[in-house]
Structure formats: structure tokens, C-alpha cells
């Protein structure tokens, strides 16, 4: 639950020169931003570097935030563009759903998982690990919807797609997550059914 001054109030104070207030915004959104960046790159150091870059960029362009959307939606748009730029620079392959290689990569990861599969995995751990098996596209849309609490319209705005396309993508992502759960964390899925 958000306490203290609202985002708009903090932003107007920062714009008036109270730079220290920006720390409030950073603290409020750092976990959200960091979680999204981790969906793009598994390396925590890289994810943290991107997240820092996002907040610096957001600070520099704060005057451009018009308030016609939530601050979080505006911020996550910067996250998306910064992550894509970072991955291009680092030449880390982003597995598109259209790319068949994504399934090969996932299968390789799956076999590693199978070897280490712990029988009594908690539900939370299981779903976190199943999320890591998903493609960037799938993990990102699930994170935006459930963890960053963005509506389909807002997700559409962040990703530059139609809300209906976002709806379809979310549905497919959940379906694939469920498949991963059934394949690798069968016991947890059984528990759910009981």
C-alpha cells in the first residue's frame, strides 16, 4: 500500500528543485523496475545497471511526464526501451515467440531443471522457476500484469501494441506458464487440483 505523498506531488516538488524527493520515487518503484529488467536479462548486475539507467533517464525527462497516464506506466515504457537498447548493445539474443529457437533454449533449460528438481518445491518457488523458463515476451507481459499491476490498456501503451493484442499475448503467456508448471512442477500442479 502506498503511503506518503502521491507520485504527482513528488514529481512537482522534484521539478521545483527538490532533488532529494526523487529518492522517494526510486524507493517506491525500484523493485518493480528491477523485476521487469530481470525478465530481459538473467544477470543481476546487468539488470541493476539497466534499472539505474532507467531512473536516471526518467529523472532527466521528468518534465516530459504530462500526467495523462500513471507515473508507473510512463516509467515502464522507459524500462522497455532501455532494456531493448541495452540488449542490442550487448548483443544478448532476445527470444521472440516467432523464433523456433526459443523452444530449443527452453528445452535445454528444462533438462537442467529436471536433473535438479526438488520434490517438495514450494508453490512460490515453482512459479518463479517456471517464469524463468518462459520467453522474454511471455515473462514480461505476466510481470507487467500481475506484479507491476498494469491494466491491458496500460500494457498496450507500454509495449506499443493494441490492448486486444495485449490480451491475446497475456492469455498465451499464461497458457505457456501453465504448461511449464504441468511439465516440470507436476506435484505442485497436483496440489492445486486437490
Amino acid at each position, binding site marked *: 500500500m502506498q503511503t506518503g505523498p502521491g507520485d504527482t506531488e513528488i514529481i512537482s516538488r522534484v521539478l521545483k528543485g527538490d532533488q532529494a524527493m526523487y529518492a522517494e520515487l526510486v524507493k517506491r518503484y*525500484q523493485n*518493480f523496475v*528491477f523485476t521487469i529488467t530481470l525478465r530481459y536479462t538473467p544477470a543481476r548486475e546487468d*539488470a541493476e545497471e539497466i534499472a539505474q539507467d532507467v531512473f*536516471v533517464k526518467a529523472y532527466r525527462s521528468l518534465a516530459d511526464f504530462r500526467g495523462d497516464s500513471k507515473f508507473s506506466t510512463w516509467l515502464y515504457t522507459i524500462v522497455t526501451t532501455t532494456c531493448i537498447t541495452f540488449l542490442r548493445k550487448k548483443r544478448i539474443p532476445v527470444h521472440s515467440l516467432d523464433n523456433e529457437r526459443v523452444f530449443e533454449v527452453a528445452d535445454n533449460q528444462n533438462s537442467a531443471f529436471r536433473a535438479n528438481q526438488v520434490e517438495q518445491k514450494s508453490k512460490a518457488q515453482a512459479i*518463479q522457476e517456471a517464469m524463468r523458463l518462459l520467453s522474454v515476451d511471455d515473462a514480461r507481459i505476466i510481470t507487467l500484469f500481475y*506484479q507491476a499491476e498494469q491494466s491491458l490498456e496500460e500494457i498496450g501503451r507500454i509495449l506499443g501494441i493494441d490492448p486486444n493484442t495485449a490480451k491475446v499475448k497475456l492469455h498465451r503467456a499464461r*497458457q505457456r*506458464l501453465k504448461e511449464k508448471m504441468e511439465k516440470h512442477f507436476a506435484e505442485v500442479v497436483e496440489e*492445486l487440483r486437490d
Partner: protein
Amino acid sequence: MNKQQHIEERLWEYIDGAGSAEDRLFIEQLITTNQEWKTKYEELLQLQDMLSHLELDEPSMRFTQNIMESISKHHIAPAARSYINKRIIWGIAGFFICSIIVLLVACLTQVNWSAGSSVSSSAINFGKLSHVDPGRFINSTYTTLFMMINVVLGLVLLDRYLNFRKSKMESKRS
């Protein structure tokens, strides 16, 4: 799409609170009357619950401090809307639209409309294109008209800009 996928799609819509009131009522009835729908609904509801409780990752302890140190070296850039003058954009658009219109008029006046459509007697004689004298068009009435329109557009823009500067200076003084 197979039946299972269809059921799941409808159920996710229901869980997300999407769809019309009629749709929701219909799904609600299916959940209470149909065992297959009920089982699937409970399964998805559990997954939904797990997804809603996904934990966020936390960056290092120094994260906020690092950002605050970084931004101390930066200034907030002025809003893009303060330095992008829409009138200039409209002026440039007007210039290109005028250019296209003048070009079209110039081309259409060269067409021999009474000519037939056969290959041998084409409306436009492509063979003569190499003999086109550009000087003829530059001195034509259309070019003068085109230049006039641009001069007028330029003067209008200049006038607006000067007015804008004047009102801005006056508001600063007051």
C-alpha cells in the same frame, strides 16, 4: 483452437473481469452446472492466486544511493513541448504539401489528354523526356505562385513567432 483452449480463454476472461455482463453470467452458470468447467475454473483460480502473489526481486542496498549520486550530475531537461513549436512543424508540412501540389499541376499540364491509350501513341511521350528543358518550368507561372505561397507562409510564421516572443516577454515583465 481446441475445446480445452477455448474453455481456458473464456475462463481467463471471466477471472480478469473482462467481457460483458451477459458473458459473465453465462460463464457463471457453466461453472455451477458443468463439472469440466468447474474443475478448470478452480485450477485457473489457483494459478491466478499464485501469480498474484509472485514476489518482486530486490536490487542491492546501494541502489537508491547510486541513482541519487548519478542524478546529482544531471539536470532535468526542459519539456519537449516547450522547445518543439508545432507551428514550425505545420509550416514544414505546408511547404511539402505545396511542393507536391505544384509538381502535380506541372506534370498534369504536360499530359496530352486527347492522345489514345495504345503503346505507340502514349499520353506521355517518354522518348522526349531527355529533351526536357528545366529552365522552362523554373520560369513558369507555377514556380512564381509556389514561391509566393512559401513567402506568405514564411511571413505568417515569422509574425506568429514574433507575437509569441512579445507576449512571453510581457508576461515575464509582469
